[in-house]
């Protein structure tokens, strides 16, 4: 583009914008969108604050529980015969490893929120931001959903990413619907050509001028709102989050501007342009993503969840029937923990509780593998198909940079699983050592808890969830965003091809 063309484009854009901005409807439309966007940012901010507050309360509960356990253990071992301990049974006694490992210990793993978390709620309302970790199994972590009205989840959230992905293109298309087409309809195009305004200058000048004005106004309002509300922290991380958001917004806007130019270059009437714009919007943001999901569901359906639960019951039944053999196998594998006096069949269920949990997981391995395989196949298929859906690409990009995507949650859960395994190994060792010690010098105390046996004082040395470094990092913008830029470039190219 030479200087003359640029100048012509700017002149066209300026005069067109001056005319557009004189219309009251323009401002009503833009301000309405900004109003909805501010409400959406407030919603995202509220959601994130609620999550952070809940996670903080969970941490307080865990810390308090640990302090209480330490205090109870100190008091108990100082005076086990105190009246308050007379009815304290082992499974509820934090000074007993059986009580502490399986019931009294409270720990939560917290998924750190990112600086841009308020900009897209994503899956963070469905997938919890903190989970309770128990040594025995991952059940509490897997099933610990946050309390929300299910209709709130089903209706979809009115967050900023929703406003940008779904509503913003409509406003942009409404803004640009009369660009070029108005002159074509009023038969003023030839006059413009005679004045030296080329087709390209005309299309780019008007559509890009209107679009960039709307986009800049909207983006500035979003930044102002997030800053005023404190939805994004006022530090370097916050700036990076906003920068990433602006990049995704710019790519998505470029895509829709390309579409707008295409329509402007082809439509003969304003009504047709508007109809075509809404048609493309409907296909892009609703039809294609919906078909994409339907395709994934059809090609790789989820294995039966009802079947999963029946498999769990079958596995439990097998373990119950095989309890003696299970104990034998366990002590064969761990001769260092084999009781010296007690027969494995007579070992207390509490002592073999973690062994039982491991056996249950082993019994469920093939079923879990089916779910894992389905999950992976669905992910791979979805990753391929999403390239056909600009709205899906944008939505995912917004969710990823906010740190509220399903993949990050899976990463979090994987790190929780790693910690849970470490926790289980820790308690298994202590539990078996305690059982051996108790066998050597049986506890005569009414509670069944003695310092030399199942008594436990190592509350502060139990492994704690330390987080995962990758979860703290600023997420990278998904490379699929280039598809939007490519599609935008392609649309502009086709739009600029001169028609007879």
């Amino acid at each position, binding site marked *: 583009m030479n200087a003359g063309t640029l100048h012509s484009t700017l002149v066209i854009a300026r005069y067109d914008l001056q005319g557009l901005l004189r219309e009251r409807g323009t401002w009503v439309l833009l301000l309405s969108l900004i109003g909805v966007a501010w409400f959406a940012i407030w919603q995202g901010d509220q959601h994130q604050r609620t999550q952070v507050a809940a996670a903080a309360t969970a941490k307080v509960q865990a810390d308090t529980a640990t302090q209480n356990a330490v205090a109870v253990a100190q008091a108990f071992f100082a005076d086990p015969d105190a009246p308050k301990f007379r009815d304290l049974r082992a499974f509820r006694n934090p000074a007993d490893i059986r009580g502490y490992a399986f019931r009294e210990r409270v720990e939560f793993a917290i998924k750190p929120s990112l600086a841009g978390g308020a900009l897209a709620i994503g899956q963070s309302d469905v997938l919890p931001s903190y989970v309770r970790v128990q040594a025995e199994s991952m059940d509490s972590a897997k099933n610990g959903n946050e309390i929300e009205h299910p209709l709130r*989840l089903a209706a979809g959230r009115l967050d900023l990413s929703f406003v940008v992905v*779904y509503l913003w293109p409509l406003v942009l298309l409404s803004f640009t619907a009369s660009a070029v087409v108005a002159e074509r309809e009023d038969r003023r195009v030839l006059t413009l050509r005679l004045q030296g305004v080329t087709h390209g200058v005309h299309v780019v000048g008007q559509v890009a001028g209107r679009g960039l004005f709307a986009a800049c106004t909207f983006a500035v309002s979003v930044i102002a709102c997030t800053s005023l509300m404190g939805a994004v922290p006022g530090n370097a991380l916050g700036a990076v989050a906003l920068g990433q958001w602006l990049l995704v917004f710019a790519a998505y806007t470029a895509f829709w501007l390309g579409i707008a130019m295409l329509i402007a270059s082809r439509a003969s009437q304003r009504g047709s342009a508007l109809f075509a714009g809404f048609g493309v919007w409907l296909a892009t943001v609703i039809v294609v993503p919906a078909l994409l999901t339907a395709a994934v569901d059809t090609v790789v359906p989820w294995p039966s969840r*009802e079947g999963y639960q029946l498999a769990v019951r079958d596995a439990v039944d097998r373990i119950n029937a095989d309890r003696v053999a299970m104990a034998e196998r366990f002590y064969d594998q761990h001769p260092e923990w084999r009781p010296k006096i007690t027969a494995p069949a007579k070992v207390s269920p509490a002592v073999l509780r973690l062994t039982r949990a491991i056996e249950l997981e082993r019994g469920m391995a093939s079923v879990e593998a089916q779910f894992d395989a389905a999950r992976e196949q669905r992910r791979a298929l979805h990753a391929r198909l999403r390239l056909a859906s600009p709205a899906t690409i944008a939505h995912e990009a917004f969710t990823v940079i906010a740190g509220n995507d399903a993949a990050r949650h899976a990463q979090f859960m994987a790190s929780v699983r790693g910690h849970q395994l470490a926790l289980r190994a820790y308690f298994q060792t202590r539990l078996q050592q305690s059982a051996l010690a108790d066998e050597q010098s049986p506890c005569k105390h009414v509670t069944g808890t003695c310092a030399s046996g199942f008594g436990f004082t190592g509350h502060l040395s139990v492994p704690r969830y330390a987080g995962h470094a990758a979860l703290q990092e600023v997420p990278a913008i998904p490379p699929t965003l280039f598809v939007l830029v490519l599609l935008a470039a392609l649309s502009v190219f086709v739009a600029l091809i001169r028609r007879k």
Partner: protein
Amino acid sequence: VNSKVTTSTHSHRRLDAATAKPLWLTAFVAALTAEAFRYWRDSRARWVLALGMVLGVVSAWTTTIEVQHTMRERAVAMQAEHSRWLQQGKKYAHSAAHYGVYVWKPVSALSVIHPGIERYVGSTVWLEAHKQNEFIHRPANDAEGATRQMPLSTALLLHVLAPLAMVLLGFEVFAADREKGRLRALRMSGAPMAAIGAGRVVVLWLLGLLLALPAVIALVIVALATSDAQPFEDAAMRSSAMLIVNAVYLALWALVITTVSAIAKTGRMSLALLMALWLLWCVILPRTAVELADESQPLPSAQVFREKLANALGEPHDPVEEARVKAAILAQYGVSDVKDMPVNWAGINLQRGEDRGDKVFDAHYGALFAAFTAQSQFIARAAWLSPTVAVAGVASAAAASDMEHHIHFTQAAEAHRRMIQRKMNDYITANPERNGQRVDADAALWRAIPRFDYRFAALPAAKWWALFLPLLASMAVAGASFVWAMRHLQRESAA
């Protein structure tokens, strides 16, 4: 002379009245036919309809497969769990109480039309001793999340996309006549504008119904395939309500589109207004309503709820109360030690623990369900502002896929759990230890526990009225607006 004039005027009026009806009907039929042909010839209409039908077929097909699969799997699972319970062999009744049973929420054929909250609540709950467990296996947790906002379902098609398709099909229904100067020609034909408008409304409505056809066919297929398994006491009423409410909703949109098109100065203005209305009713208000409902009645975080529940359950038993119960029972049997009673103190004590736990669960879950209900009521009030919220309310109630039905099911499952516990504890109470050994129960006791075959209770007429009222009110307003717009158009075309 005056009497002659009066007689002549009266006879003219009679004549007018006599000819008005056939004229109105003729104009209505002619407008209907002409409008249908216009759509038939319009390539844009064919595109919109083709796209709508493709979406309708895909959504109906995928939803049908999912619902049928879920119904089949849950029926199999319920039967398997009941068999497992019956075949658990001889064991101590309290061990059986801990073994428990899983129950699954039944799914109806009507959820083909409106899946409601089903993907966002757990599907199964474990009924065991001492605990009211939470529902697990929420399908939404497995989703990729890419289409959280607009997941393809028949409900999305009927309540969101069909109106949009109708907007795209009908925004020019009168606006184009005005823009192209055809209003006067319409007037000169002598046809009443209301009859022309009604004809156009009906065609637009029929096009909307055409988009709904795949969903209805899917419903019929699933209903026929599972006719014996419908979990309702009022299946016919619910099915009728489902069909009527969707038909009324689409009729409302047909009226609104025709009205707006009749008053808008240009087709562009008509499209812009209708798109704004669609966005407001179908997209923004349903979301805003649920967000504001949460602000109006905040829910506790899961951690706070579980911590309070655990603390309440973990509080030591009231020793005074325990001593009072024990003393009363000892007095009842005239003994001084529980060992001397003809009944088993362990069973009485276990049931006492259950009763205490039940009070705690009732207090905590009761407060939680009350908050959910308050939020649901808040959302229901938005039905007066958005017909989409109104139709979703009726449809999800008909399909039993709303929060109210979920709470009912949860409470029924909990009642079943408590019944199991009471029977197990009664058995323990009635069978004291023999020679220091606990008495095991057998299949006779397990058979005493009926299978949990839950059926959703019939909704009372008052409930249906409450659900339908906002939509009927919207319909009345839309009807009045339509009549006003037609009169306005009549005057305009005469000017």
